[in-house]
């Protein structure tokens, strides 16, 4: 084991605590179907005061829970299955679909990165905010690869998820966008899993299109962002 500063018992306790809190919130959310009771948000809100009160710094928490972190990689590989399922269904119009989603990815990365560099002037934060329209596991993997800050990415993804999922459908109705495919693809690419869950409740067709958008957008982002960020960066130095 690589645990130097912390003993194994503390480490197991912290991992167990994280698991228990998360699973309890997830269970309650499932049971009562409350979308705002986000297990990740509630777990973090509960864990941070606990860590601060017990003088556990982030480095030792991260080291203690490295088991959970290690599972992130195989879990991300598992997303290949929904990707496979969705590819079967977009055969007829894949060219237009990929072109539209890729343009969206380029647009959202460019404006998020530029606005953050202009207002906050920190590259790590700009990278994190550029990856907010991606499903969480892929967002975290890409942020770490580009040396951004993955905790900011995780939060940004959650804010993008809630704002777009709750207000997006009304906004689209207001600007006269009515087709299931347009509503599903746009809310799916902007608000990923949270958008997908909310749309699926009211209209399964929209929910299905949003799953297509969220998985394809994430793959497109993985190819686009390592090229786009080095192009944008010199503009702000």
């Amino acid at each position, binding site marked *: 084991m690589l645990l130097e500063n912390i003993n194994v018992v503390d480490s197991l306790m912290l991992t167990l605590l994280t698991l228990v809190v998360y699973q309890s919130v997830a269970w309650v959310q499932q049971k009562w179907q409350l979308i705002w009771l986000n297990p990740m948000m509630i777990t973090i809100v509960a864990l941070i005061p606990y860590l601060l009160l017990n003088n556990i710094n*982030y480095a030792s928490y991260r080291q203690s829970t490295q088991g959970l972190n290690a599972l992130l990689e195989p879990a991300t590989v*598992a997303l*290949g299955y929904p990707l496979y399922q969705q590819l079967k269904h977009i055969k007829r119009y894949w060219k237009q679909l990929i072109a539209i989603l890729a343009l969206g990815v380029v647009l959202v990365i460019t404006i998020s990165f530029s606005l953050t560099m202009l*207002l906050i002037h920190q590259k790590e934060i700009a990278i994190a905010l550029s990856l907010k329209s991606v499903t969480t596991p892929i967002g975290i993997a890409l942020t770490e690869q580009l040396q951004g800050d993955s905790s900011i990415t995780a939060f940004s993804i959650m804010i993008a998820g809630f704002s777009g999922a709750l207000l997006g459908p009304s906004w689209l109705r207001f600007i006269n966008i009515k087709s299931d*495919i347009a509503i599903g693809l*746009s809310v799916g690419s902007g608000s990923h899993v949270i958008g997908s869950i909310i749309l699926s409740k009211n209209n399964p067709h929209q929910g299905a299109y949003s799953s297509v958008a969220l998985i394809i957008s994430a793959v497109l982002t993985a190819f686009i962002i390592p090229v786009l960020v080095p192009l944008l960066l010199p503009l702000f130095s």
Partner: protein
Amino acid sequence: MKNIIYTIIAISICLTAGKLLNSAIAGLPASLYGMLIYCFFLQLGWLTPDKVHKANQWIISHMGVCFIPAAVGVINHFELIKNYGYAIVVIIVFTTFVLITFIGLLAEKYLSTKSESVTKGY
């Protein structure tokens, strides 16, 4: 049980291949190469979709807890949130709506006639 082991071995092989690819040609993170290889193997029929279905759905619906160690990192960013919290939220919400509007308009114009039934993946 047999299918669970099948899924675990399938994912492990794809992740290992992803790691090899990542160290050979860089580019994408290893887990993303693994994901694409997994999808590719399913497409080629080298892996049986029915065998991975159940365990795979379980992994996806429980993966959220793996994000917690990364997300707790905000503990080191109270200063940033105090100074720029509003700016960060405004940037996120604004760009999310730009994206939703952009994709919505294009899809309505170019794809709304091609309504084809799709099934929900997860």
